[in-house]
């Protein structure tokens, strides 16, 4: 914590103010205290250094005040167009965790069941020799790496080059598989190009914001405050479509609740209304869209080694129209629990040619056994009405992690990805081989394990060595009740690189002390395709080291030094400049580092010194070349695809033995598994433990009082938590909601490892549980 503060009283005042602001943030969604920045800042000569926030995909610009080599204050960057100087509670307090007492400052190796401190060079020797030995004995597909949407762009790039280019295995995946894979698959199937077409400036023009299963007030608070600002200023309307009443719902103009999984049907019913009320933008779909259908009844991936490949078939508009007959508002209202009136109301918003509409979504749509389909359906609505790629009009898939876009998706730390394109594509492999200076045959053409299957393979004994960075899978994976004993098995050597001890590092054979983001230089890419750079701001404690440098050191020790000729002082720049070569051109050009050092980020494609704010729109995007107003150039024929995607039930639904839906998620105070934010006293005090939200009628029927401990159990495991009734959120009857940030109340022991067969992203929002008094 702020030990550098000479004035303890000043620090306590700052703490007191912060506690009050945190309390306010839990009562008022999107609340902003701009002047707190000045009020909370210690006196003295602070050196302000710019960078992006560490804590979410909004990617707010921050300024970190450094005094005597220590980070002592954080304020919003007024020059950042993302947040214009504002931050949320997590943003203000972010640097308070880095000096926590239990910070991992030195490498640790497990000897006879206890951890022994060793010099980092020795630890890296052990990692390299163990990895090499495993490859020699069991083959290159016996080693794996599991990385993060919180890794920097250079870290992701080096991980990919190391695994795919040097070792020659596609055993690389990342935690963005758990949050963003359905968004990626949705973009690729509909547009052939990943990431949103619009940008945050859309908020300034939209008349309606329709949020699909997305509690933005808590998960994207600064963007939510931009929506509230427009609501107050211009009368823009927020429509919240969700399975639970949240802080976002109460601040919205209208809240519409639906039965879990039926968003697929309601989305199709909106399309039915658009088609049958003459609201289709005919010239737009004639010029710019194709229609397709894929396979159905794909299963849910709950069995090991499950495989699925979709088989798209072209259809025409009339076939699509006939398919929609199953989704009249009257039919859908029966099982979605959304009234016919509300379905028609939603459709009319999209159908009004004079209204600009943004759709916004994140985990509710992505963490879904039909997540790719649900992304496709939202795109269908925007394509049918031509409300896309224009200021204020467009579907906007939001990201959870600070660099899920920049690192996981653009660099490509998924098993099937390369920095440009996919491993299955010969041309993409050839480009990677050329830039990496490796033989093209070394890059395998088949993807291997996605996240869930990777940890199943650890449990089965197929993976004998795994190295994780900036991730906490034993809290965040679904069905941790299987994976914890799996990772504890002697058959797999576990290396964990992190900033703090976690339940995952508890099972490691070697723990590597990682630098926190401001203790190294780096780049992140946020939800609006904005790449942001920062320079190292402070020294990390002990032997903490940037992850990228640890990969390079291990690669050198394994004999791949010639592929990683970077210097310790300047590796971030050198790696970024190498990486940029992958994306040269008008479709994905990345801004030069000099530009990123100067300004608060730039949006790719960065062409002729300019960010491209609206892709596929010829008035804004220089890559459009078909002579029309719009050009979906990600697809070979320049047309986007409207997909016929049906409603199918969830992998597991409530029944007599397990009569409740379980929905899991996040809270505003904590970042994901809480390993950082639970070490920030103000945030920890505001939200010290997880809880289980119940509908008051369900609680009454079970005789459960607020705060009383209850047991939430599924066929896989159970978790005891205090009941929360009529507090922060209100689930619908028959549903229970539990946040997953608390390592002492592991709700993921209860969840199901079912996933979307196309994206392989697990569904954390739906499984069946029972509730009992504990």
């Amino acid at each position, binding site marked *: 914590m702020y030990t550098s503060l000479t004035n303890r*009283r000043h620090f306590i005042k700052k703490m007191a*103010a912060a506690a*009050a*602001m945190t309390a306010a943030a839990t009562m008022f969604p999107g609340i*902003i205290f701009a002047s707190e920045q000045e009020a909370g800042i210690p006196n003295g000569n602070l050196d302000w250094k710019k960078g992006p926030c560490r804590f979410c995909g909004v990617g707010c610009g921050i300024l970190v005040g450094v005094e005597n080599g220590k980070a002592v204050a954080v304020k919003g960057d007024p020059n950042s167009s993302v947040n214009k100087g504002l931050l949320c509670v997590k943003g203000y307090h972010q640097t308070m965790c880095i000096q926590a007492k239990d910070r991992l400052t030195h490498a640790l190796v497990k000897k006879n069941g206890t951890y022994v401190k060793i010099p980092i060079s020795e630890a890296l020797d052990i990692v390299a020799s163990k990895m090499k030995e495993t490859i020699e004995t069991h083959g290159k597909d016996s080693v794996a790496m599991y990385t993060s949407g919180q890794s920097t762009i250079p870290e992701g790039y080096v991980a990919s080059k190391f695994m795919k280019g040097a070792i020659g295995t596609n055993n690389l995946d990342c935690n963005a598989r758990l949050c963003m894979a359905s968004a990626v698959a949705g973009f690729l199937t509909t547009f052939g190009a990943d990431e949103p077409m619009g940008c945050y400036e859309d908020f300034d023009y939209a008349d309606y914001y329709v949020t699909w299963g997305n509690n933005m007030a808590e998960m994207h608070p600064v963007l939510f405050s931009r929506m509230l600002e427009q609501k107050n200023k211009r009368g823009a309307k927020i429509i919240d479509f969700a399975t639970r009443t949240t802080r976002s719902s109460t601040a919205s103009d209208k809240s519409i609740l639906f039965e879990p999984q039926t968003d697929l049907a309601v989305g199709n019913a909106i399309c039915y209304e658009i088609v049958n009320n003459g609201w289709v933008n005919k010239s737009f779909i004639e010029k710019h869209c194709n229609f397709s259908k894929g396979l159905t009844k794909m299963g849910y991936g709950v069995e090991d080694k499950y495989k699925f490949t979709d088989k798209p078939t072209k259809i025409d508009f009339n076939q699509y129209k006939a398919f929609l007959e199953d989704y009249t508002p009257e039919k859908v209202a029966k099982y979605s629990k959304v009234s016919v009136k509300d379905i028609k109301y939603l459709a009319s918003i999209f159908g009004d040619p004079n209204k600009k509409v943004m759709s916004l979504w994140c985990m509710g749509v992505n963490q879904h056994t039909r997540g790719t389909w649900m992304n496709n359906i939202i795109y269908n609505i925007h394509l049918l009405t031509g409300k896309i790629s224009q200021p204020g009009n467009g579907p906007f898939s939001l990201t959870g992690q600070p660099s899920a876009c920049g690192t996981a998706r653009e660099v490509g730390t998924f098993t099937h990805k390369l920095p440009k394109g996919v491993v299955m594509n010969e041309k993409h492999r050839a480009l990677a081989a050329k830039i990496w200076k490796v033989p093209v045959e070394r890059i395998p053409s088949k993807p291997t394990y996605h996240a869930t299957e990777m940890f199943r393979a650890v449990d089965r004994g197929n993976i004998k060595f795994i190295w994780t960075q900036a991730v906490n899978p034993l809290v965040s994976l679904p069905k941790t009740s299987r994976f914890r004993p799996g990772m504890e098995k002697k058959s797999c050597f576990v290396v964990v690189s992190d900033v703090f001890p976690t339940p995952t590092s508890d099972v490691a054979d070697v723990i590597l002390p990682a630098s926190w983001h401001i203790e190294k230089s780096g780049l992140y890419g946020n939800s609006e395709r904005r790449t942001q750079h920062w320079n190292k701001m402070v020294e990390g404690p002990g032997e903490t080291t940037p992850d990228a440098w640890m990969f390079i050191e291990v690669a050198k020790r394994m004999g791949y030094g010639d592929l990683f000729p970077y210097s310790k002082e300047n590796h971030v720049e050198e790696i970024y400049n190498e990486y940029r070569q992958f994306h040269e051109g008008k479709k994905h050009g990345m801004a030069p580092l000099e530009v990123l050092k100067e300004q608060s980020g730039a949006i790719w494609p960065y062409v002729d010194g300019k960010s491209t704010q609206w892709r596929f729109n010829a008035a804004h995007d220089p890559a459009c070349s078909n002579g029309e107003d719009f050009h979906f150039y990600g697809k070979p024929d320049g047309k986007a695809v409207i997909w016929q995607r049906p409603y199918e039930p969830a992998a597991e639904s409530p029944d007599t033995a397990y009569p409740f839906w379980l929905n899991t998620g996040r809270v505003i105070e904590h970042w994901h598994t809480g390993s950082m934010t639970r070490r920030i006293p103000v945030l920890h005090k505001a939200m010290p433990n997880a809880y289980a939200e119940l509908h008051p009628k369900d609680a009454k029927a079970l005789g459960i009082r607020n705060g009383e401990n209850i047991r939430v159990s599924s066929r896989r495991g159970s978790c005891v938590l205090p009941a929360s009734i009529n507090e922060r959120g209100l689930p619908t009857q028959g549903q229970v909601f539990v946040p997953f940030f608390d390592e002492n109340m592991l709700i993921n022991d209860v969840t199901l490892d079912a996933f979307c067969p196309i994206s392989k992203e697990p569904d954390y929002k739906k499984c069946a549980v029972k509730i009992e008094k504990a």
Partner: protein
Amino acid sequence: MPITSYLAHPQEGKKSELLKALTSFKDCEVIPAENEDILVVVTETRDTEEENNLKDKIETLNSLKLLVLVSGFNTPQND
């Protein structure tokens, strides 16, 4: 040396009046929310008696609807 923080809810339409009144107290630091009718108030006084007096004074302000205590710290006087 108590340091205490509160959330102050103003009467409707009286946020700036409340802000003005609170900032005129020498032992009060006030941080207004940008986009909601609420103010964070941090008081720093010599002892509990002084703190209570200040709280009473705040509570008599006409522009105040509700004052909610959030956190209290006590530090040695010479720290």
